[in-house]
């Protein structure tokens, strides 16, 4: 165990997509209880610096592990298939069509009820996409296919944020 260990090793959890959130929370707290700079407030600067590095590392791993999409992207990267959103924006055409439809639906929605209905639809699509992603990673181990699914899900997540903004603007 050192600062270069990957997130899964650091947290002592299996290296796979499916994770128990309660377990991640518990491990995070246990690790912070060991490394947080407050534990060393009465000690010298050297201990403080090292504690800070560890605490930062633990928080970084925690933020990544607890977010399913970031966790999936991280697994792809660890297994040699980086998601590469900067250079790789290719999407299957039917997915793009779907995106355009959703965007149009959001723009033309006039009431909170219409936006809510769209949110429900997108939410259920998202859940099944995550389920497919889990099978691709944990059952088939096909990281290249998983990387493509991650890219598509990133679009979906951004769209969910737009829906939330719209709902907030509508006073919900």
């Amino acid at each position, binding site marked *: 165990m050192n600062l270069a260990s990957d997130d899964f090793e650091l947290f*002592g959890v299996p290296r796979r997509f499916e994770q128990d959130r309660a377990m991640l929370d518990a491990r995070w707290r246990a*690790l*912070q209880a*060991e490394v947080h700079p407050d534990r060393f*407030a009465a*000690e010298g600067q050297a201990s403080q610096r090292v504690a800070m590095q560890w605490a930062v590392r633990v928080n970084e791993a925690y933020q990544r592990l607890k977010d399913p999409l970031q966790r999936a992207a991280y697994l792809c990267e660890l297994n040699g298939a980086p998601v590469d959103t900067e250079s790789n924006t290719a999407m299957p055409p039917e997915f793009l069509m779907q995106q355009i439809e959703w965007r149009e639906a959001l723009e033309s929605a006039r009431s909170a009820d219409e936006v809510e209905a769209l949110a429900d639809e997108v939410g259920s699509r998202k859940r099944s996409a995550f389920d497919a992603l889990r099978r691709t990673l944990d059952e088939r181990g096909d990281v290249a296919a998983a990387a493509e699914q991650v890219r598509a899900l990133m679009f979906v997540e951004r769209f969910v944020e737009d829906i939330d903004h719209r709902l907030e603007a509508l006073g919900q």
Partner: protein
Amino acid sequence: MALLQISEPGGAPDPHQRRIAVGIDLGTTHSLVAAVRNGVAECLPDESGRVILPSAVRYLEGGGRHIGHDALGEAAIDPRNTVMSVKRFMGRGLADIAHREKLPYEFVDAPGMVQLRTVAGVKSPVEVSAEILATLRQRAEDTFDDDLFGAVITVPAYFDDAQRQATKDAAHLAGLNVLRLINEPTAAAIAYGLEHGSEGLYAVYDLGGGTFDISLLRLAQGVFEVVATGGDSALGGDDFDRLLADWALAQAALSAETAQDKRSVLVAARAAKEKLSAADHATLACPLSEGELSVRVTRADFEALGRELVARTLSAVRKVLRDAKADRQDVHGIVMVGGSTRMPMVQRAVGEFFGQTPLTDLNPDEVVALGAAIQANALAGNAGADELLLLDVIPLSLGLETMGGLVERIIPRNSTIPTARAQEFTTFKDGQTAMAIHVVQGERELVSDCRSLARFELRGIPPMVAGAARIRVSFQVDADGLLHVTAREETSAVQAAIAVKPSYGLSDDDIARMLREGFSTAEADMQARSLRESRVEAERMLLATHSALAADADLLAEDERRDIDALMAQVRSVREGEDHHAIDAAVEALAKGTEAFAAARMNRSIHDALAGRRVEEV
């Protein structure tokens, strides 16, 4: 000598070796200092037995000042030179200050933080706050007849980086060693001992004199996590006073034009408000230059005036619940903090909103200081095995300005701290050799809607075609929530860094100058103070190294152990000397020389922790 007494790992040091650490609630209307004595946190009274120190500083001609009750009492006769609610100006520019036409001060629009012109010269809010902190420090030192090891100071959860930095600067200026800044609502939860209670979500509703904070804390396995924070840094009891004052003036068809009149009517309004918490009616009365003001006000009148302010607090509560994706039914308990929560209308509204009676057992003015004292005691290493760990989040997102005045978010709000995040940028012009870096804080997309924290430049980038340079900007937020930013061009290793303080905080030179200009505490002599601080640091470093060696000396090879022993001997030999530079140098050498040892100890402790947990799970 204390050095030779090594306490058991995890055990509390001997009583005579206890480090005196205090918690300070640096509040908008009043401030308190508390400490753990005989295992119980209590607020420390002044020589007249009062625990509350009004956050008021009156500057006198010729350089003197009155602080606290004296200043408060003189506010009505000398409003211009009596600074009250200075916390509202901390880390704030002139344009940020609400209702400034109603305030009796002469503001000076200084770059970064606003300043106030008084008979004793122009004062920064940091200096005014430092006067209050120095008074509390003196009180604590008199109580214990000893120097302080350090202090935990509370800040509103909503405070941004500039405001936190300003608070730290003020503490530094007052000669305090800041162990941590912690969020006020978290301190309140600690004071209620919620960490010993049932696990789950708690809300802390803190309506103080000048700020409203709402925090959601999650308690699990004895550890607090701040799940979400929100509120309004310009809403508090002062606003109720102002509404009541304006209403009374309108009723009496009088006006308050002079600074003194404005202050008098506000003081009278506050007194009437406080009376209405227990009584059905009160009389708001004070002399004004136009004539005598005397207006009868019923609790119903007052509640009608305040309804909208209370509603504003509840809409902030709703927003925080939304941020946390939690329902009001998920909340296990509500802690009430701040004198303004004594108002029956506030308790009623909060109780109705959450469908349960909020916690009001502890004095709402004292809870924050009490919690800070408990935390300070733990941080000073006095608490022994059941140490308290506070995990925290940053309240507002941190980002950089990119093309077109847009914000690129680097660290999203509610990230657990400490944290670090880096992002790569590139040049957009051929041959570009410099890049301006503008650090902002806030949730909006446009730079102009966010708060500017700092600007700096990365220079000396070798000329390249546009897009070829690789500039890595790293943000690091420490456990106090303070930000450091570095920028580095990766192909040439050109580097620039900034601790975010220039646009609002004080430079080290400013602090040195203010220290030179002297303080109300006994020792204004900077040399003496530096020497004392160096000695305290040397002592601390020696103790820390001793206990590290006692626990884990087996990690060291013989020659490594010899090196550390030699460095410790060096610190010991200069420690009693008069040259604080020599002490600092020896301490720094010891710190550097033990870095590898500290890293090895940390690795061992993590191994042990994980191994321990795995065994438990089997």
